[in-house]
């Protein structure tokens, strides 16, 4: 814009509003963006992490403070092993004194988790089943999530695996895995009579299956446990469990009209629903354990 020297020119410019426009342009170009004032600069995690020594020191400090706080709490806790501690209240007395009469199980813990608190155990079985389904979603290998290089690598691995004799493992597994699986079944079936139950016995059976699969390859286990049978066993057991424990809810809560024969406590066929529930839980846990192994090694059940 040319310079305005005469008064008339200036007046004209003022009337037309050129002046203000000019200044507005300048102002817009020059002005500073209003910035929010940062009173408290947040410490950046990367900056602290780049200083390794400081980061380690802070970690140890935080953990030490944590331990100290909890130590103070522990020093205020009731004495270890004292019978009059608040945790040992009437709930425990009820379970121990009425347990055999009401559940028929000699193992009080089995009677507690599979009769008094059976829905809690049902939730646990569901958690396990959900975990194996989530792992399946993440790790299942199919044509969509596998590249050609990976496929070649897997084929190479399998070829090497077929050549490998694994004599010690195979002989060991041949004699050990039936014994392990049999012992697991014993633990499951004796869950209401002795220490054990569905969870521990199921893990033992799963361990036997894993040993067998490691020695003789996945194909040998897939003869009787493929994805189809896995789904049927897991879902069938969950539904059986649900049906069994819904019984007391359908007939009114608090076991009103609960007429399942308890049998003689101490016999193998006793304790009402606890034996079938233990079998259900054991099957779910065994399938889950083997499923984790198969998914992590081969990407398929």
């Amino acid at each position, binding site marked *: 814009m040319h310079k305005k020297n005469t008064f008339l020119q200036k007046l004209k410019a003022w009337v037309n509003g050129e002046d203000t426009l000019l200044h507005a342009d300048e102002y817009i170009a020059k002005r500073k963006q209003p910035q929010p004032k940062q009173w408290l600069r947040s410490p950046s995690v990367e900056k602290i992490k780049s200083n390794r020594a400081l980061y380690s020191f802070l*970690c140890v400090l935080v953990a030490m403070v944590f331990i100290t706080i909890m130590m103070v709490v522990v020093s205020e806790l009731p004495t270890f092993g004292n019978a009059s501690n608040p945790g040992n209240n009437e709930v425990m007395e009820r379970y121990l004194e009425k347990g055999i009469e009401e559940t028929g199980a000699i193992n009080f813990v089995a009677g507690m988790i599979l009769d008094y608190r059976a829905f809690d155990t049902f939730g646990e079985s569901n958690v*396990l089943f959900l975990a194996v389904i989530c792992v399946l979603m993440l790790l299942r290998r199919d044509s969509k999530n596998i590249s050609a290089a990976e496929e070649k690598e897997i084929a190479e691995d399998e070829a090497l695996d077929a050549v490998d004799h694994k004599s010690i493992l195979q002989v060991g597994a041949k004699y050990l895995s039936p014994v392990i699986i049999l012992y697991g079944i014993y633990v499951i079936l004796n869950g209401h009579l002795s220490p054990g139950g569905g969870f521990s016995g199921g893990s033992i059976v799963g361990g036997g299956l894993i040993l067998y699969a490691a020695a003789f390859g996945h194909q040998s286990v897939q003869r009787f446990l493929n994805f189809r049978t896995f789904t049927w066993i897991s879902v069938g057991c969950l539904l059986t469990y649900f049906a069994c424990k819904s019984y007391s809810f359908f007939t009114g809560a608090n076991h009103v009209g609960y007429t399942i024969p308890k049998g003689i406590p101490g016999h193998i066929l006793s304790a009402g629903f606890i034996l079938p529930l233990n079998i259900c839980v054991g099957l779910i846990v065994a399938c889950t354990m083997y499923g984790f192994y198969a998914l992590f090694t081969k990407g398929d059940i």
Partner: protein
Amino acid sequence: MTHLLINYYEAASVILFGIGFMNLLLQNNLIKKFIGLNIMDTAVYLFLAAQGYITNRVAPILTHGIVDADYYINPVPAGLVLTGIVVSVSVTAFSLALVQRLYKHYGTLNMDEIMRLSREREGE
């Protein structure tokens, strides 16, 4: 202080918990982080088992036909530990599956490296 020595199971479980927590913070390798998480889980089981114990009593399984609450230890924490073990197994399996996917995608298990790579890819 003397009370801490009497309650040494609880004190040991608290120290174990702290060790696991420190492992979780200090390790950069993701699998080692989950080992730390499992140490913390174990500390909780030890704490619960210690809470259920009563001196001079036997495990809660009928022995010699004695039905008496003063003869057995508390069975409730055993059930709670069982729940804890199941949840810990599920969480460990799920997180290890996620770690495997991360390794396939980024080619490293180092936490900082993964964060840097993901930020770079985001910036592109």
